[in-house]
Each structure stands twice: as structure tokens, then as C-alpha cells.
């Protein structure tokens, strides 16, 4: 029996002759990531362990992005702990404010993750890097501390699910809609403990930003990882990175023809329209066109899911020469410093400000109700983020709807959930 791409990468990194779903393995990890929320707990555990030194400082990545630039004194102290740890242990991959971005947008952008890597991160959206053909998954702070000491992590080899997408994408439909459609189909625990492998003719022509969006939200179906086999688009993306942090193009794996899948799903994307996940679960998915009676107080365009340059270009296309409705707070947050600057150079920032929006420094910000747009009681937001759980963006009595950037920008203009075709 052949192997899936996920199994191949795990086998390559494990001290095992073979792997099969359900098997427990210890595996060498290529990169271990923490942020200002999760790394402080890991640093405490590492210090308590008395190990005294890191297994490999080159593999440690620290990104203060959640509550950074520090939103309050306690957050400032957490960020300070990261900076001190990086200094004391000579960690080069520490990204201070001014150099940082949202971790899952930053790492691919600077070439820290390559195809074939095994990456863990104390952040659930670490599954994003599967878009590059890496195995990457979210773990906890204690796992991170253990990796600091041993360079390894324990895993249960997951079963794989195959999602085959066919057909040409309709206008205004992107990676966000494909993943929302998938989560809507299988539910928030539909891929629990399993690998989600995305393939098919639609994926073969899908650009990297959309692939990153899709793999980013694998966790919202309970998935262990999302993954797309590396191809020409992957190679082109990696070759285009300036000042790449790691040499080479990585190692490309693909699934064997006789690999085993627990589930195979086929979707015709021509039938998919711009979608919105309604409160309070990402699986509560409905077409944007059916939600025109939902008015919004705030629109957020950003996050590790949809804060990349192609997302901002789509938003700017919708907003150019138009105004957000006066009752709506429009908040646009580029995911990294590079994206921030590119959007300024391309004139996108000007469009956002002239539309009555704010254009912010990179941060996870309001996505998890941190800062830069926390919701009041009874308020409703439409966001390009990834979660719409109760109270996710602020007050427990507030609501979050999730969509792609075109729907978000159109909705900002209309003051209610809108289909992009209502605006352009």
C-alpha cells in the first residue's frame, strides 16, 4: 500500500521504518514556532525543566503578533519575555515589532518554511504551511517546550481525507469560499485528527495566497493538517522570495496512486458562490446572496487567513472611488510589513483611507478580540478572519460572520452583508 504525502513527510522525520494511521511516533521537527500568547508558557516550562540550552536555536521561531504592538501592560511583559528569551539563547528568528507580521503570513513570505518540512507551532493555524507541501500542525505550549529541549515532537499518524476540486472558479469565489464550502459540508469536527489533502484541477491552478487560506482553515474542520502537493506554482512562489531565510526549494513529496484515504470528497467549484459562515460556528455556511438582511457595525479585512496582498487588492478593487457606509467601521490590517508597504506602493492604502477605512500596522488584532477593533455588546462584524465562535471578537454578546475579502469590502459599502456583484 502506498503512502499519502502526509505519511511520507512524517516517515522521513520519524525514527520508524514505516508509518500507518493511528501509530504513535516521535519525529524530528524542522521548525518550532511560538507567539506572544503561547511562547511565555513554553518558556516557563523550558526554564522549569532545567535543560539550560536549546536543542537548536536556528529552529526556534518567535513572533509577537497576537497582542503586539503591546495592547496593555501585561501584554507588554509577555512580549518582553519573548525578546529576552531570544536574546539569551541567541535566537535569530525572533521578529520584533517593525520586522514582524502575523506569523502564518510572515513565515512563508520570508522562506522560513519549505516543501517537505515538518513544522509545529503553538498556534492552531500553523496548519497554514501545508499550502507549501509541508506537514505543519498546531500543538500546545508544553509541546513547544519539549521541542526546545529535544528537537522532537510526538504525533499520532493521521488518517488522510482527500478533497478533489474540479472546474473553473466563478467570479468572486476564492480559496476562502472553497474551504468554507468544505467545512460547511463536513462540519467543525468532520476532519478531527485527520489530514486534509486538497487536490484536483482547480487546486492545480490556484495561486499560493488562496492555497494558504485553504490550509489555514483546516483546523476549523478539526483537521490535524491541510496539505497541497508542491507543484510549479509552489516552486514559482519560493523562487520569487527575496532574501530567503533558508536555501533551496525544499523536498517535494506527493501521494502515491495507491495511498489510502478514509474519505474522498469531490466538489464542482462552478456551483460554489461567495459564502459566509454565520455565528457561531465556521461550519454554519450560507451564500452571501441570501444574507442581505444582516446589517454590520464593523468590517475587518486581515488576519492569517485573508490579510495577504492579493486579498488587499481584491478589497481595493471593490472600494476604489467608493465609501464605506457611515455607520460601518472598516478596519484593514495587512498581515506583514512587506504587505503593508506593497499596498502603500500600489496605492491600495490610499483607496482604503479615502473609502473611510483605517489601515493598521500588522497584528492579529481583533480576530481573537485582542485589540484594534474589539466588538461591543450586541454588535455584528463581518470579517475575513477564521473563527466566529461566541465572543471571539469581543463581547460575548456580539456576532461575527466570516467571508472572503470581496464580500467583506462590498458589505462595508452597503452596511449589510452584500454580494460583490451589487457593488461592481
Amino acid at each position: 500500500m502506498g503512502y499519502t504525502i502526509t505519511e511520507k513527510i512524517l516517515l522521513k522525520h520519524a525514527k520508524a521504518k514505516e508509518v500507518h494511521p493511528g501509530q504513535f511516533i516521535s519525529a524530528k521537527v524542522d521548525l518550532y514556532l511560538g507567539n506572544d500568547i503561547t511562547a511565555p508558557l513554553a518558556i516557563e516550562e523550558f526554564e522549569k525543566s532545567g535543560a539550560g540550552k536549546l536543542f537548536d536555536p536556528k529552529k526556534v521561531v518567535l513572533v509577537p503578533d497576537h497582542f503586539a504592538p503591546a495592547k496593555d501592560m501585561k501584554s507588554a511583559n509577555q512580549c518582553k519575555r519573548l525578546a529576552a528569551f531570544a536574546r539569551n539563547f541567541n535566537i535569530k528568528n525572533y521578529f520584533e515589532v517593525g520586522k514582524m507580521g502575523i506569523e502564518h503570513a510572515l513565515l512563508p513570505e520570508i522562506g522560513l518554511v519549505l516543501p517537505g518540512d515538518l513544522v509545529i507551532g503553538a498556534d492552531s493555524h500553523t496548519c497554514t504551511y501545508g499550502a507549501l507541501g509541508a506537514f505543519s500542525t498546531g500543538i500546545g505550549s508544553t509541546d513547544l517546550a519539549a521541542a526546545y529541549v529535544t528537537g522532537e515532537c510526538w504525533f499520532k499518524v493521521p488518517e488522510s481525507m482527500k478533497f478533489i476540486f474540479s472546474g473553473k472558479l466563478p467570479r468572486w469565489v476564492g480559496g476562502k469560499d472553497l474551504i468554507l464550502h468544505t467545512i460547511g459540508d463536513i462540519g467543525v469536527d468532520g476532519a478531527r485528527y485527520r489530514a486534509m489533502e486538497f487536490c484536483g484541477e482547480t487546486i492545480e491552478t490556484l495561486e499560493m495566497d488562496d492555497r494558504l487560506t485553504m490550509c489555514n482553515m483546516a483546523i476549523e474542520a478539526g483537521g490535524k493538517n491541510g496539505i497541497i502537493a508542491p507543484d510549479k506554482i509552489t516552486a514559482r512562489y519560493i523562487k520569487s522570495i527575496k532574501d530567503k531565510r533558508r536555501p533551496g526549494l525544499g523536498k517535494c513529496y506527493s501521494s502515491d496512486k495507491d495511498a489510502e484515504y478514509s474519505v474522498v470528497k469531490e466538489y464542482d467549484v462552478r456551483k460554489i458562490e461567495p459564502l459566509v459562515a454565520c455565528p457561531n460556528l465556521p461550519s454554519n455556511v450560507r451564500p452571501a446572496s441570501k444574507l442581505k438582511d444582516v446589517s454590520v457595525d464593523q468590517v475587518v479585512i486581515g488576519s492569517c487567513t485573508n490579510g495577504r496582498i492579493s486579498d488587499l487588492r481584491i478589497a481595493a478593487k471593490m472600494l476604489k472611488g467608493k465609501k464605506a457606509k457611515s455607520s460601518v467601521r472598516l478596519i484593514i490590517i495587512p498581515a506583514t510589513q512587506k504587505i503593508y508597504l506593497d499596498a502603500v506602493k500600489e496605492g491600495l492604502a490610499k483607496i482604503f483611507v479615502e473609502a473611510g477605512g483605517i489601515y493598521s500596522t500588522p497584528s492579529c488584532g481583533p480576530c481573537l478580540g485582542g485589540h484594534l477593533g474589539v466588538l461591543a455588546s450586541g454588535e455584528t462584524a463581518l470579517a475575513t478572519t477564521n473563527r466566529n465562535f461566541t465572543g471571539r471578537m469581543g463581547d460575548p454578546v456580539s456576532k461575527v460572520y466570516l467571508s472572503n475579502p470581496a464580500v467583506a469590502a462590498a458589505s462595508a459599502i452597503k452596511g449589510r452583508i452584500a454580494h460583490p456583484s451589487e457593488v461592481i
Partner: protein
Amino acid sequence: MQYKGKTHRFGDDVNTDEILPARYLNTTDRQELAKHCMEDADKAFAQKVKTHDIIAAGRNFGCGSSREHAPVSIKAAGVSCVIAQSFARIFARNCINIGLPIAESIEASERIRKGDTVSVDTDKGVIRNITRKETYKFEKYPPFMQKIIRAGGLMNSIKGKGR
């Protein structure tokens, strides 16, 4: 190991944003986190919960954010064990790693009611509902996980490893 206590009931898809809201993620102080445990699922939980109490929930408990602060707050609040129909992956591994016992049982999840006194035997894989005089089985941890648990958590289990 055996754990015995009164149960607090929760439903399906209780996520880590509800277990420990992000507004409290600016600290790692266990006692501070305990004060806000389950706050957005049941505002009064932190006041009601007593040492050794047990949480019983539905499907996919602990989904969402990887924040270890969620199981840490449950443990620090005095909860001795969490029973659910199923657990989200990262939450489950965090529990194993920090030494918070969990038990996955559809039957127990369906039968246990708020306030029932139950005991959980993780060596035998048996849950006893003392209030209702019922017994439910659950699958014991696989040997790999038992090693971590017996060591008292992941950090103890890796002692001496590394260079």
C-alpha cells in the same frame, strides 16, 4: 488513577475561546486563569466549581485555538477529569502533556446529568455514575500516552533527552 467528583455539564463544540477567553491571555498566572475558567460558556463556573469536580461535555470539546491556557485553567480551577463524547485534537494533547485526565465516552456523555457524582478509573477505563448507579466504559490511553501520564506530563517524560 481514580477521580471522583460532581459533574458540570456542557454541550457540543465548546471551544477554547469559551473555556478561556482571549481577553485573559495576557497572563500565564495559573490562579488568575482559574478565575476565568469556562467564563464564556458559563459565567458562574469559576465560583461554583469545587476541587475534584468533573466536567462532562458533548462532541469536539476544546476545539479552536491551541491555547494551553484553556486546559491549564480547568486544572487550576480544581477539576479532576474531563469526560466528553470526543475531544478536539490539540486540546486533547495539551491535557495529556500537562497531566489533566480526559475520558472519551459517547455513553457517559449522553447519560451523565448536571450534578451527578461520578468516578473515573483511568487504569480500568471505567466511569461509574454513582448518582444513577450506571457504569460506562471508555478506551484506556494507548501505551505511548500512558508513559507520558505516568511520568507526570510531557516535560517529566523527556527528562535527560536532548543533547
